């Protein structure tokens, strides 16, 4: 499948935006500027962008605790996200959600999620709505290699098959759940086969390669969109940071991180491929880099200056209408 030049530039821009967003967030956490638990997506950018490249605004995604990348790839406003992380009332969720709960419903982003495997059942519901409303939309859920062992994940996969809904399960294997290796936590040798045993096809991709993810996700999403029921995407790529910011990462093998950054970088791979094919010039890519850096810098400045919530906002937005007494 050939990808139009403009789409290539967009994909690169999004991957770079995620990378720089995460690196800046990491730095700001180290400076004590961002509260709470934050899980960075750095390294896995091609997964989110390769999948979301096939989605329209009205297709939905549901994300995980490691959600910044998915949200940016699906079109979340970077400045609104940064404000959310900084706890501003101008953030996408008015500061009430924070890093683990970034959401933008109008953009089809049904939220990052603090509960491991909390998302897949919800995405089955979104897929059911698409099926009943016959609008041709799909519902994507992102899950980690650890989350696929939750009952909720199994239940969602089975129900999606039973109801034959356009749900797409994207499983991101970054080899670890917190510091437990996938080889320990997943009991069988072949997770792809285990997933396919639910009754839907799973397309495998190298998560360091945007083009591989784009192709696999394209097949899965086309399958679901065509009314054939759910499909899966299986992408493998390590994260560059700890489980959360501050994780000492004693569980890593020697040289593992250096190797990941050096040899498994979706941005480098993308650039190499462009150099070879000539589809997007180096100048254009450099220009995108500069624009992204400026965007992130501005988003950070804005987030620091943005309004903080006032005490009366604690009780806002619990209900739409709680009745006269409230």
């Amino acid at each position, binding site marked *: 499948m050939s990808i139009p030049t403009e789409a290539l530039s967009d994909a690169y821009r999004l991957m770079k935006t995620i990378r720089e967003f995460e690196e800046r967030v990491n730095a700001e956490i180290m400076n004590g500027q961002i*509260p*709470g*638990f934050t899980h960075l997506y750095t390294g896995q950018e091609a997964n989110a962008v390769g999948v979301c490249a096939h989605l329209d605004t009205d297709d939905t995604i549901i994300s995980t605790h490691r959600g910044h990348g998915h949200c940016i790839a699906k079109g979340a406003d970077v400045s609104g996200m940064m404000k959310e992380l900084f*706890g*501003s*009332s101008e*953030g996408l*969720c008015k*500061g*009430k*959600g*924070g*890093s*683990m*709960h970034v959401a933008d419903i109008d953009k089809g982003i049904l939220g990052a*999620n*603090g*509960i*491991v*495997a*909390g998302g897949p059942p919800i995405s089955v519901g979104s897929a059911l709505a698409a099926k009943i409303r016959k609008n041709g939309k799909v519902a994507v859920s992102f899950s980690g290699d*650890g*989350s696929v*062992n*939750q*009952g*909720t994940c199994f239940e969602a996969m089975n129900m999606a098959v039973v109801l034959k809904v356009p749900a797409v399960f994207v499983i991101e294997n970054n080899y670890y*759940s*917190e*510091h*437990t290796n996938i080889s*320990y*936590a*997943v*009991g069988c040798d072949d997770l792809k086969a285990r997933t396919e045993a639910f009754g839907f096809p799973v397309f495998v991709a190298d998560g360091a390669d945007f083009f591989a993810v784009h192709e696999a996700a394209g097949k899965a999403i086309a399958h679901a969109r065509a009314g054939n029921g759910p499909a899966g995407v299986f992408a493998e790529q390590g994260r560059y940071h700890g489980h959360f910011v501050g994780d*000492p990462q*004693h*569980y890593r093998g020697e040289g593992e991180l250096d190797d990941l950054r050096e040899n498994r970088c979706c941005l480098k791979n993308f650039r190499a491929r462009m150099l070879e094919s000539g589809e997007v010039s180096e100048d254009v890519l450099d220009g995108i880099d500069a624009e992204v850096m400026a965007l992130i810098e501005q988003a950070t400045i804005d987030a620091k200056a943005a309004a*903080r*919530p006032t*005490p009366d*906002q*604690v*009780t806002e937005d*619990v209900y739409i209408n709680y009745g006269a007494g409230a």
Partner: protein
Amino acid sequence: MKMSVREAINLTLHEEMARDPRVVIMGEDVASGQGGVYGVTAGLTEKFGVARVIDTPITESAIVGAAGGAALTGLRPVAELMFIDFLGVCLDQLLNQIAKFRYMFGGQARTPLVIRTMIGAGEGTGPQHSQILYPMLAAIPGIKVVAPSNAADAKGLLAEAIRQDDPVVFCEHKALYMDECEVPEGDYVIPFGKARTVVQGTDITLCGLSRMAVLADQAAAELAAEGISAEVIDPRTLSPLDEESILASVSKTGRLVVVDESNPLCSMASEISGMVAEFGFDYLDAPVQRVTAPHTPVPATPCLEKDYVPSVADIVRAAKKALAY
């Protein structure tokens, strides 16, 4: 010896595992690495091996259920539910299974199980990692609920939780882990259902649960500076609840403030004030004051979280209101 809550729990786990080979630890990331996010189970694997310190997949229903099954058949599991919020994933195993075994099997079952879990706000961890939820559990017949507010109580109550034969949920407030105090050495067991009088006083009773006992203590110090003598009571175990000690204190002071970090509806604060209204009506010189979080989820942003969590100032204000009545 002076130690933190985190160290006291870690020490007790070591001691109880050494004392009884039936004690096993299970949970997510408890064995490998640093022993959980806050290192509470650190060093246990090195000492007791992976046969007794068991890492599980992320699978709360199976963790809690398997711990229940193992308890039913001869082990004494201490299972970790990383955050109490994850109760949402596995409630059936606790509510409909473990809590009911003894009663619905006509007294045959023995389920010596402890579920250790982290509670509470104050760390900016947002709506799904900061809840209290213990009132919900205290409302379930068949399980006991414990919430220590300092290292010494954590040690004594955890030892009791592990040694006794009923299922216990042991609630560890994450904002207390680094708090230090003197902890008795050697065998130290605190029976359930016995409140601790933190400070003696005569004018008003401040009853605080979990971390709120610490804040009530600070409020008492502020009140003392203004010449008000507050008595501070920490129930320590929520089910069973030491109603007698609370009533005895109120009979002396005539006034009560209950401080509870949970949401107000059906809270421990409601339970205790209802109990005192029913059984201590004659002692009361003022309406019972409840200081709780509002009826909202826990906001992530610290600007709002600090308003969400009851503060020392809130407690002092409530005490003065009761005193001015």
